[in-house]
């Protein structure tokens, strides 16, 4: 075999190997996606055609000789043969031109195709496929799905381990941090955590039923620690303040009351969904609403977060 062909095959093999490698590198590979397949087919065609067409001409350099009738003119001693154009080239040029005209006028229905129409169909197919599947996703599978949502959407802010990256966003491994509780008690909160407008009053609206006075600085510190640490049974001072100030709304155990105040002891699907729907503004910063998630994805994200704070 000629050395050239060997080189051609080696180069082609390298490029095809590289292309194959890209497919393997991607989760799901070609994924049944027609766009992926066409792109890979294009890449493969590109390598094979170029390599073997070039080899064809290089072979002619090796074996053929230049000949033909020279034109009369020469420029700075450069001559010019009157050779005809290579037939294959001419046919293909003509062919692509005819194809182009045909495609534009007839093959491609000039105004009937619409990329938005194509998109709509694609989305409909995608939704139909997953809508059916969603119903059966529960329990551990739901947590798994939530993790995938979290890794794609949330980790830029909350960090890959959901720790809030040094206080840049909420640490989701626990229900709430001390400084957040303290801030909320001092300044109130108004983030539609219940899904509707339902603000919590600031310290000027928080009475301690036991003392009959407004909540004090010391009491704020005590109760913030108590809430942030997850209502420890041995913290009687905290429990006392909580019972006096907070329980009327958040319930005796801090698990909230419908339409009154949210659960501040643990994450609930409703709470997370509300945060994702309305966003949240607090002492740490502002979390945007993540509108593009559908209801199932929000539910899944909640399941994942709940699993985190349970220490699993």
């Amino acid at each position: 075999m000629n050395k050239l062909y060997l080189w051609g095959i080696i180069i082609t093999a390298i490029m095809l190997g590289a292309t194959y490698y890209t497919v393997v590198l991607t989760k799901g590979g070609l994924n049944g996606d027609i766009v992926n397949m066409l792109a890979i087919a294009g890449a493969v065609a590109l390598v094979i055609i170029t390599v073997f067409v070039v080899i064809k001409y290089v072979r002619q350099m090796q074996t053929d000789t230049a000949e033909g009738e020279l034109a009369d003119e020469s420029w700075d001693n450069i001559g010019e043969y009157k050779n005809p154009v290579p037939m294959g080239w001419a046919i293909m040029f003509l062919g692509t031109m005819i194809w182009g005209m045909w495609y534009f006028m007839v093959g491609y229905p000039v105004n009937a195709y619409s990329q938005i129409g194509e998109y709509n169909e694609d989305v409909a197919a995608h939704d139909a496929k997953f809508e059916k599947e969603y119903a059966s996703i529960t329990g551990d599978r739901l947590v798994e799905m939530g993790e995938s949502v979290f890794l794609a959407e949330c980790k830029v802010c909350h960090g890959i381990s959901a720790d809030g990256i040094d206080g840049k966003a909420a640490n989701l491994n626990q229900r709430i941090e001390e400084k957040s509780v303290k801030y909320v008690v001092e300044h109130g909160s108004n983030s539609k955590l219940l899904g509707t407008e339902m603000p919590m009053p600031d310290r000027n609206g928080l009475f301690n039923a036991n003392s009959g006075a407004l909540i004090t600085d010391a009491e704020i510190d005590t109760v913030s620690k108590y809430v942030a640490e997850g209502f420890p049974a041995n913290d009687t001072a905290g429990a006392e303040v909580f019972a006096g100030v907070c329980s009327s709304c958040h319930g005796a155990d801090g698990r909230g009351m419908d339409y009154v105040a949210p659960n501040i002891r643990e994450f609930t699907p409703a709470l997370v969904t509300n945060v994702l729907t309305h966003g949240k503004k607090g002492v740490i910063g502002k979390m945007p609403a993540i509108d593009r998630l559908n209801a199932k994805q929000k539910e899944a994200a909640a399941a994942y977060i709940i699993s985190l704070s349970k220490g699993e």
Partner: protein
Amino acid sequence: MENRPLEYDYTVAKMFMLTTILLGIVGMSIGVFIAFELAFPGLNTVFGEGLAEYTNFSRLRPLHTDAVAYGFTISGIFATWFYVGQRVLKVSMAESKFLMFVGKLQFWLYVVGVAAAVVSLFLGYSTSKEYAEFEWPIDIAIVVIWVLWGVSIFGLIGIRREKSLYISVWYYIAAFLGVAMLYLFNNMEVPTMLATSPAGESAIGDWLHSVSMYAGTNDALVQWWFGHNAVAFLFTVPIIAMIYYFLPKESGQAIYSYKLSLLSFWGLMFVYLWAGGHHLLYSTVPDWMQTMGSIFSVILILPSWGSAINMLLTMKGEWQQVAASPLIKFMVLGSTFYMFSTLEGPIQAIKSVNAIAHFTDWIVGHVHDGVLGWVGFMIMAALYHMSPRVFKREIYSKSLMAAQFWIQTLGVVLYFTSMWIAGITQGMMWRAHDEFGNLAYSFIDTVTVLHPYYAIRGVGGLLYLVGFFMFAYNIYKTMTAGRAVEESELANKSPMGA
């Protein structure tokens, strides 16, 4: 008088050879630097936090593209024109004081323009449009320089002895006209100092600032009508002008087919301009315009390959020359890369393929197949061929040239294979959904996965740059230490040292 051989005057050609080499070094060094910045972002601040404003990736990227396009490539085009033009028209610059003056004026204005462009880009003056970043005063300078070049071209043609225009001249004329038209329309800007406030204040704010005459989708259309054809009329048309002269000249072979030259030229002129829509696939421009861009891109394969095939066939039966001469190797491999990128481009212009390729490194790979393997190789080959003739000295070292060839070829191969993998991988990852119908990857996952390929690309670029320094050194030594040569040695094949 009539019988005395013509003494061509290469003064202006030499000046532009110098800027080709200098700006090539500048542009490619920045290219290598920004390539490594993507692999190792710490390099953004390697010159100190204080200078990072000027040395970070985003500030430097336009400097790279403009230095190689408007610096290296345009200098190369001018240098070869002031060489080839005289020879194929059989007329010397020395015959016209006026043309000589215009040529030198063009050069010095060009130097001033380049300096202004570099400083303004460093300072962050940019209109953001790719390959048209310059603010309006530099646009004006560019137009003046371009008009002067036009005067040179048509002035020389006006006093020519050779009645009929050689193929290379067709392409230089086309490059001149194309760039003039495109550049003017894409740079229609209104300087903001023209506005007056209701309170009567005028000349408010920065006098260099301007706004585009076009908005949104229209601006995009004009920009990519320009951008695509800037590629055509900077990186393709004038480079074809070069190969049509330097390959037959160096090899002593006659052009394979006049008819093929003719059809390729007019085909290219006709088809190229329609293909700009392929930069706007799936954007907000109407579907029919996008489709037209795709169709013409596919048709464009043939007029592009026509020239390349004509060149390869010109070397028919001359394998021993290819094997023996690194100079011819540059040109033959250049044609091959030209074929590769003009098939790659049309494939990437197919809508479904572009859905993956657009916005990824596969495009960057495509770009550099063309600019490194074709533009860079051809310009260096041209300067190698010119050097013995303008300096009257033998090329300093053939073995250095051969080493350079292999190093740079390896560089290009590393560049395009790494970007091929990076681009297709990223394109596929962006599209991937997982078993739950969620996006499979967050954006950052698709960034970190590219790290090794960015590193390999950087190495590839570095090899190419090393090769370019070898080239610069070889030319420098040719000028200063090459053996003086006789006129008779210069008919075809360039004389080379060992």
